[in-house]
């Protein structure tokens, strides 16, 4: 068997179920792969690790990849399979702040970790929703204090991943009906979310391995979508301290919002619409000054995807 190290962007949580399902059900094995999955410290550091070859394959935010490619045009890391057709980037708030739509953020305080992937899209969000961002006070608050500060009313809204913030807020004894999560994708953002990425040298040297990995992962995703309840068991085996109910709910939320979008239902898993991807790169340009703007083909290739028929739900 070929050993393959696969890096996640974050810890072992509900949405990481597909890979563990693929392991536990022997899908990787069937492709002749011996896959090990590692946690990660976020997309930024993770992409660097894939680019440096520490990991041949990883699961990271494609928007970060766009920036990485812009800063390092000679490092041809590419996404090969889209997983989050819609990104989990969101703005969370509580009902008592009275914020119901993006425009309501004016005059309020927004708490955002400087390194947050969702906050990175803030300016695009502002533009799409015609918010006067001079009226929004932004505070850099780190991840550990983000939800507590919202719950304490020290900030009125926070940016982050929908399925992190929502459950963290629940944990803080907020009731589901008190929490409002606005997915940025629902408010004009055309961005994609996390995708599987590959180190270019590895891909060139082992195209079969990469193809096999994608195939098996797709089966894992399909199984997870079909049966989240049993899929979550594979996560729980690997995270002894997690709470199964929470993780299952988190997974279901991710499946609903990020995995299984209308576009995916129609076109199948794993692929992208290259025009939308190109548009999303333009949208990143709102928040970020490109040196040499990468093209859609620079960040995504479908060459390792199985035929569309195999990718249907």
């Amino acid at each position, binding site marked *: 068997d070929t050993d393959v190290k696969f890096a996640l962007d974050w810890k072992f949580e509900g949405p990481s179920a597909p890979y563990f399902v693929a392991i536990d059900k022997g899908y990787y094995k069937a492709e002749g792969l011996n896959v090990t999955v590692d946690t990660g410290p976020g997309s930024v550091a993770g992409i660097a690790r894939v680019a440096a070859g520490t990991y041949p394959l990883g699961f990271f935010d494609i928007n970060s990849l766009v920036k990485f490619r812009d800063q390092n045009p000679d490092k041809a890391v590419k996404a090969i399979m889209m997983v989050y057709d819609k990104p989990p980037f969101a703005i969370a708030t509580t009902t008592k702040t009275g914020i119901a739509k993006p425009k309501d953020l004016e005059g309020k305080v927004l708490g955002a970790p400087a390194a947050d992937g969702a906050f990175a899209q803030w300016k695009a969000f502002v533009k799409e929703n015609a918010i006067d961002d001079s009226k929004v006070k932004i505070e850099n608050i780190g991840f550990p204090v983000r*939800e507590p500060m919202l*719950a304490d009313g020290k900030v009125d809204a926070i940016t982050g991943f929908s399925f992190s913030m929502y459950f*963290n807020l629940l944990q803080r004894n907020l009731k589901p009906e008190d929490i409002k999560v606005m997915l940025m994708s629902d408010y004009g953002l055309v961005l994609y979310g996390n995708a599987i990425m590959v180190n270019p040298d590895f891909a060139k040297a082992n195209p079969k391995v990469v193809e096999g990995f994608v195939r098996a992962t797709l089966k894992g995703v399909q199984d997870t979508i079909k049966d989240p309840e049993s899929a979550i068991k594979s996560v729980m085996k690997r995270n*002894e*301290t997690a709470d199964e109910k929470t993780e299952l709910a988190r997974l279901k939320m991710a499946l609903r919002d990020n995995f299984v979008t209308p576009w995916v239902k129609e076109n199948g898993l794993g692929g992208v619409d290259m025009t939308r991807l190109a548009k999303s790169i333009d949208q990143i340009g709102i928040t970020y000054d490109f040196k040499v703007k990468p093209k859609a083909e620079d960040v995504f290739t479908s060459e390792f995807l199985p035929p569309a028929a195999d990718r249907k739900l």
Partner: protein
Amino acid sequence: MNTHTIERLSPWLFTIAMFLIWEVICRGFRVDPFILPAPSQIFVAMAQYWWPLAKNSFVTLWTTLAGFALAVVFGIVLGIVVGWSRTIYRGLYPVMIGFNSVPKVAVVPILVIWFGIGEIPAILTAFLISFFPIVVNVATGLSTIEPELEDVLRALGAKKLDIMLKIGIPRTQPYLFGSLKVAITLAFVGTVVSETIAANAGLGFLMVQAGSNFQMPLVFAGLLLLAAEGIIMYAIFAYVESYFVGWAFRSSMSAGG
């Protein structure tokens, strides 16, 4: 209860008092358990997750000790080198200060690229973060040797290295042990920092995972275990120290002996 008993019990009394105050503050001021859980909640989490905690504590402990051992050896050698030559002292010190002013989080990614994730970056981070206090105290000890004592050896035709080993190091031992106490705490910090970024085990790993699920009592359980490991190491040093440097704690005011 005589003074001696009070002295023997005082670490326990202080610790218990601290936990009590902590509990009272948490309850009295209704501190949000997501900010600072009360000790009682932490102990519950500890009981509930004792196995993952134990397993990961052990990983953190041994990686820290490995890094710390490196730091001790390297710190003493570098201290001697720095104490050896004024040119090296003056040249190397600023560089070391600069390096140490930089948070080691910035160094971990580099280590990860070179050594992969896991124990090695943790060991190296623990080492990199903890050698400096040792160097400083050894070098200070060497450069403040009383010339009177130095002359005793020089008059015998002793080489500089002899003087360092026979006088410099022994007389600075109390401070060397002091620096070890500082260094071991830093080593733990280094390991944990590295584990939060790049590991699949260890208390740092466990705490980020728990933190990302907002299981704050579990995070604090990890912190307490970390503290406990630091204290155990300290107890070991204190024992070794009392054996080696009793001569220095002759003062009636001595708190060390």
